[in-house]
């Protein structure tokens, strides 16, 4: 049966994981209510999206349930 000849060094594990980093979500602030929101989404605070309100507050909450 094939067995490892040498100990797998920490550096080897580290180099393998060099490309595994996660990227954080791109955040922006809502131009209407200044809540921090991800880009290209309807604002969860005020329902604002691209120049108009598409969703009143209580509807956003209702949809979230």
């Amino acid at each position, binding site marked *: 049966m094939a067995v490892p000849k040498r100990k797998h060094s920490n550096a080897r594990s580290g180099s393998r994981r060099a490309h595994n980093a996660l990227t954080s979500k791109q955040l922006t602030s809502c131009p209407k209510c200044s809540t921090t929101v991800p880009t290209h989404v309807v604002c969860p605070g005020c329902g604002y999206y691209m*120049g108009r309100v598409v969703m009143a507050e209580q509807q956003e909450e209702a949809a979230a349930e």
Partner: protein
Amino acid sequence: MRHKRKGRRLGRSSSHRVALMRNLASALFLTERDDLAYEGLFQADGKTKVNPPTHKGRIVTTIQKAKEVKPLVEKCITIACKAIPHEREAEKFATTAERNTSDWKTWRESENHAKWVAAMAPAVNARRRVFSMLRDKEAVAILFGDVAPRFEGRPGGYTRVMRLAKPRLGDNGTRAILEFVGKHDRVAAASAPKPSFASDDAPAAEETSATEEKPVSEEAEAATATAEAPAEEAAAEESTES
């Protein structure tokens, strides 16, 4: 190789996927039904009332499902829109008399009835084609009666998909709104007043500063607006605005 493989499988078998798409498309059309239709409707427990949707013409689903069902919805609307001129043409030969009255019977025997049938045939065909896609009579009726007339003359782009910020609680899926355009459209931002050239005899310094600043700011605004907009929606919006 991935050649010619289109669409998402959504973790479903073919038949399950087709059924899902039909249900989603029908659900979107059914949101337009009259509030009275919800009177006396109860959920499975037999006690909780079924409420009409808070927003007509809108469903909330995952972004993937919304994007998948969008083409189906739009195809249905296109077919329905093409039937409208035929229905209008058939109106000329129709009768207002109630069914099985003597007036109706004379119309039924007359030449007008044959003409009406011939004129209606393409519209009936369109209804059947849409029904074969949706398999829901009520949804088809709402589409032809209510939704399609709103979009007559619009060259596609009847729906829009918008992402929501909060993911689903159970599986962290990205939620999105799928809705008909026409409501909640973007309002065109009021453009800055154009510099007038009437006051040419005004001091030269003022004139140059005004003309230099304004076009630059306008262009910058337009650039950011188009960069933010998804291409399809931008095209759709522009056509409504113009």
